[in-house]
């Protein structure tokens, strides 16, 4: 389908596809096995100017937005959904800055992110605060011109690898969600440390660790927006970042479909290619159609967000939920179509199925997405009356 990309967007897509095919695909299985962070690929992304595509030109980026981030993430994830996350999760860590950073904060941190010199990371989730993000316990206490942060963040993507962390902490516990604030914390700040790298089912090369704050003194100038805005910053960040997760799911699913089409064309049983059997064809047809529908939804949502539209939470949640559910289904079907080979690590599709699963869980479980969508629908309906 023709999504009417601009020349620049087409270049981003083509270049990311080239990187995925030539540089990521050949090393994806090994990184999945060793679970090491793919710094060599991050270096290639930096040298190719990919890291700055969604950052304004005045900070050294290419001036694109959520849509550019999505098309890049989709193509890179076709190569490996784990490796691409180093890039995509930096976007998640950068959005609070892009959306709420003041001029000084932007000028200090965005150029390094745009040039790929530094990765970013977003730290919200805690052991007892997942879907219920309002119940975080990490605290930030004002002390002169500093805040002292204490607490432990869990399952933080890019933790330990990134240099720049945007952290949500409570500045006023008595206010609940309205008492949360967002801070920029640099990696080398005393009192900041990391837990061990988690051993995950999928996206194994991406780094997931605890981020531990022990009397971590952060300059007050690193507060994003103002005190109490933390929860709103987190929600607006997710509105902007969810199409990226959707695009990651889409790239993984597209790869699964490509592998399945090729395999069923080559695999012969009963004297003919198995792709000549209607049962197989119907599966391929459903996979391809659902995937294209997901793509159309993601691109529309991303363009709507970039247009500056208000109330984008619904479409953002819709595309994340739909694309990740499609990815889980398509990758599962791809394993089925490859049969016994699909279940073996010698073939790429079992990894795709493992990688796809997380997209239904993180940046808001798909159950939370449905809650967001439903409450938007209800609010819209009430607004009309």
């Amino acid at each position, binding site marked *: 389908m023709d999504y009417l990309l601009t020349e620049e967007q087409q270049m981003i897509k083509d270049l990311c596809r*080239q990187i995925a095919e030539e540089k990521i695909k050949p090393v994806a299985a090994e990184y999945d096995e060793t679970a090491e962070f793919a710094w060599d690929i991050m270096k*290639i992304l930096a040298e*190719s100017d990919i890291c700055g595509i969604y950052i304004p030109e005045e900070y050294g980026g290419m001036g694109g937005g959520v849509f550019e981030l999505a098309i890049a993430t989709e193509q890179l994830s076709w190569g490996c959904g784990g490796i691409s996350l180093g890039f995509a999760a930096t976007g998640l860590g950068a959005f609070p800055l892009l959306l709420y950073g003041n001029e000084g904060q932007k000028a200090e941190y965005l150029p390094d992110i745009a040039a790929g010199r530094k990765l970013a990371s977003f730290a919200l989730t805690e052991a007892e605060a997942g879907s219920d993000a309002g119940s975080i316990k990490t605290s930030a206490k004002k002390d002169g011109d500093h805040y002292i942060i204490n607490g432990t963040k869990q399952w933080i993507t890019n933790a330990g690898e990134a240099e720049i962390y945007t952290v949500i902490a409570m500045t006023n516990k008595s206010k609940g969600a309205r008492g949360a604030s967002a801070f920029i914390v640099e990696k080398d700040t005393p009192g900041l440390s990391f837990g061990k790298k988690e051993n995950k089912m999928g996206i194994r090369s991406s780094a997931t660790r605890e981020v531990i704050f022990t009397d971590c003194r952060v300059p007050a100038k690193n507060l994003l927006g103002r005190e109490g805005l933390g929860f709103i910053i987190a929600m607006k960040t997710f509105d902007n970042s969810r199409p990226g997760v959707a695009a990651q799911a889409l790239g993984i699913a597209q790869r699964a479909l490509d592998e399945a089409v090729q395999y069923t064309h080559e695999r012969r049983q009963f004297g003919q290619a198995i792709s000549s059997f209607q049962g197989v064809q119907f599966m391929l047809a459903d996979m391809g159609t659902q995937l294209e529908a997901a793509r159309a939804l993601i691109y529309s949502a991303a363009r709507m967000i970039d247009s500056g539209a208000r109330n984008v939470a619904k479409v953002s949640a819709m595309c994340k939920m739909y694309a990740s559910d499609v990815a889980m289904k398509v990758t599962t079907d791809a394993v089925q179509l490859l049969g016994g080979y699909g279940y073996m690590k010698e073939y790429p599709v079992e990894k795709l199925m493992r990688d796809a699963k997380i997209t239904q869980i993180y940046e808001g479980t798909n159950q939370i997405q449905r809650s967001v969508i439903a409450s938007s629908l209800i609010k819209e309906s009430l607004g009309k009356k």
Partner: protein
Amino acid sequence: MKILVLIKQVPETTDVKIDPETNTLKREGVKSIINPFDMYAIEEAVRIKERSGGGQVIAVSMGPPQAMEALREAISMGCDEAVLLSDKKFAGSDTWATSYTLSQAIRKLGDYSVVLCGKQASDGDTAQVGPGVSTHLDIPQVTYIKKIEQINAESARVERMTEEGYEIIETALPAVMTVVKEINEPRLPSLKGKMRAKKAEIPVWTAEDLLCDEEKIGLDGSPTRVIKVFTPPPRQGGRVLAGEPEAVSKELADLLKDVVISS
């Protein structure tokens, strides 16, 4: 330092069909790419520029108008400028006429320190154009370079690959250098490079622009005459001579005499 890179656009596949009528390569339906060996030359040129903290890299190609795409790709990888040599009069050039034409362009560009090329093209496989250019320009040539150890505006020290190992050669500049794939790993294009490439104005120089001697260009200027291009038949099994050494050696000598005399 001005560095020139000579590149050729070639068919992507190594499995090229030959037109039995014209004895030329069939290019229809085959994607064109930059000759893979030239990618190493482009990368090395850009690296020399980056290391020396300044200078200019100009990619030069001779070919039909579609070779412009190869030059744009060279710019996307970091070349500053590019020039296309294209003229119907260049058609049918062999390696002699091609290297003459390229050398005319190099003279016109002037004031260069190094001319870099891939060791050979993946379609013709002659490895003659680089050395030919150096001869036409009457400057030194160093072929099969696997490492440039040191380079400045006046001289360079390089490692030249041989079958047994490598030689260290020091040469005055300007010189022509051809490179092997061991020299580096070509980078991918960058986004900013691709945008620059899209907008770049690439001049097209004709035989007239290059002040070419018309007797030295194109098919008429090419001393090579291709009589037939064919895939040689697979080698037939040999004969084994058995018996006493003396008798066998005499038999072999007779056989060899027959072969030499009859051919």
